């Protein structure tokens, strides 16, 4: 669950102050901002440029270079589905089609109810148990379309047991 706080300039300044002593501080600060707010707000660009003595272009360049940094507020949960070769070998392409149809979104999109944002990734390091999906920071292996549906349902409406673990995955 992404318990994201609404964007706040004051809070952002505090995060910058907490991290600015680090060498090469921009990436750690961007990670901290995204963890706090769920995304990198447009207002963060001039703020970081001023605080770190960089140009706005430098900051924008870094934010836009890395796939991980998001420019818009995500849904309550972020689903990352792996599209790399080991997952392809076990049906990731079909799984991607299923997920897109099920959630009615494309990559980088957020479902109408705000529950899920869908992202593609290339490798989650679970290549012996592919296809792999990560929901927030929970990793799942051997994700069939049916298992995905169970994981998504469980994530959106948790019962007592952790998602996707009710049945043997194979």
């Amino acid at each position, binding site marked *: 669950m992404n318990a994201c706080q609404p964007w706040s300039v004051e809070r952002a300044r505090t995060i910058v102050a907490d991290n600015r002593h680090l060498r090469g501080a921009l*990436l750690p600060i961007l990670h901290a901002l995204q963890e706090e707010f769920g995304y990198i707000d447009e207002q963060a660009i001039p703020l970081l440029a001023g605080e770190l003595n960089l140009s706005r272009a430098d900051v924008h360049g870094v934010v836009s270079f890395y796939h991980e940094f998001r420019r818009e507020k995500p849904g309550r949960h972020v689903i990352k589905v792996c599209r790399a070769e080991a997952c392809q070998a076990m049906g990731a392409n079909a799984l991607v089609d299923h997920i897109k149809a099920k959630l009615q979104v494309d990559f980088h999109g957020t479902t109408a109810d705000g529950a899920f944002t869908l992202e593609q990734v290339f490798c989650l390091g679970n290549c012996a148990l592919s296809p792999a999906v990560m929901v927030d920071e929970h990793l799942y292996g*051997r994700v069939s379309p049916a298992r995905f549906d169970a994981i998504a349902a469980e994530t959106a409406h948790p019962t007592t047991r952790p998602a996707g*673990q009710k049945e043997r995955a194979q």
Partner: protein
Amino acid sequence: MSGHLITVYVPRDAAALSLGADSVAAAIRAEAAKRELPLRIVRNGSRGMLWMEPLVEVETPDGRVAYGSVTADDVPSLFEAGFLSGGDHPLGQGLTEEIPYFKKQERLTFARCGVIDPLSVEDYRAHGGFRGLENALAMTQAEIVKTVTDSGLRGRGGAGFPTGIKWNTVMGAKADEKFVCCNADEGDSGTFADRMIIEGDPFCLIEGMTIAAIAVGATSGYVYMRSEYPHATETLRHAIKLAYDEGWLGDNIHGTSRTFHLDVRVGAGAYICGEETAMLESLEGKRGMVRAKPPLPALEGLFGKPTVVNNVLSLCSVPIILDKGGAYYRDFGVGRSRGTLPFQLAGNLKHGGIVEKAFGITLHELLYDFGGGTISGRPIRAVQVGGPLGAYLPPSQFDLPKDYEAFAAQEAMVGHGGIVVFDDTVDMAQQARFAMEFCVAESCGKCTPCRIGSTRGMETIDKIIAGKNVDANLTLLADLCEVMVDGSLCAMGGMTPYPVRSAVKHFPEDFRRTPAVRVTHIAAE
């Protein structure tokens, strides 16, 4: 049984968690409480037999007995079967270390992974940990570098550069500050050894980096982790804190005059940051743009200072080399590929996991003797070795011995030891297209052959798949691949053609199907 504290191992490895290891641990704890049986649960790393995860082990007088793969629902029946004393159960696998997949391995780097509690310094020391560092603390810088050089260790990240020679350059460089950076940006599909060892034996990496720092005279270091690996990052951060607490990191390491400070930095989903100079740029807080070489990072690396950049597995091989000597390590392997490599069996394979073996083992042994063939039951048609920039090999090449030179001769690479298996439903034209698509997504954009070439390559393969001017477009694709190989700044653009060329070379029929036939072919399968 009651009164005697039994130890049960339930892995905390991300792969085990991905199949429910946390709920298995919780179920065991709950069931034990209900039955008033005292037991201790250790959350170990993985033994690397990933198809059996979650693999639960019980300590018995005869050794550790394995059960897998266990779900929370199996737990009551395990207790009924007396698994706490190694009782028979349908999920029983016998003694863990007698399982052939495990027994046939030569575990040097992964010796402790899955065995110990990853976050116990005491457990680490009890299994030989920090002995290499203790030796290093009593040696001169040149002696440490010579030991690593003598071991024949080559970079495990992909390029295979001799580690000792790299260290020697950094040691000889004059500077007010030097760095040791660990490249843990394990972005290749089909590789997970870095993740596993960081989750299962993090002190091994800390020890290896500290030895490197002492050898070259560095006082600070960074581990560059992937954002896709939150579990490994958390484990490593915790382990670093413990190492500081116990005097293995920081100022005056264990009473000596040596100092080494270590920190973790997290990338942000850019594959190119696995390239060493792009990683350094990223560590400096910039876009992960590849630098032109020279200058070598060994002379002008992080913040312009002499820097050792090594892969996780290279650094994790160092403690045993300093513990047992260069000759011990060199005695494993063949030709100029010395020591062992943790191969990673992935994709459509029955028994996926880690197989650490000396160089020289063949693909055939890995795929069939260890891997057990495909999980789908269909024949293997292609394997991709060495990550997304590695060649696709057909079964006729499965007898190739795994060593750096033999593979390089085939435009394949040992790389980071990843092996991804595809059955006969794979469409190799689509795989070739994906190689280009991946390069489009992940190119840093600095050089033209990679940035533009990949896009044009994808378009050209699309035309071939659509059956348009196939011969002319295949010629164009071959030319384009040549330009990318010869003209790119780094391996991203320079090796993206390898999977493409190998697919065209070994599976030409997939590039010559008319669209109608292609659809029927796929539908039939």
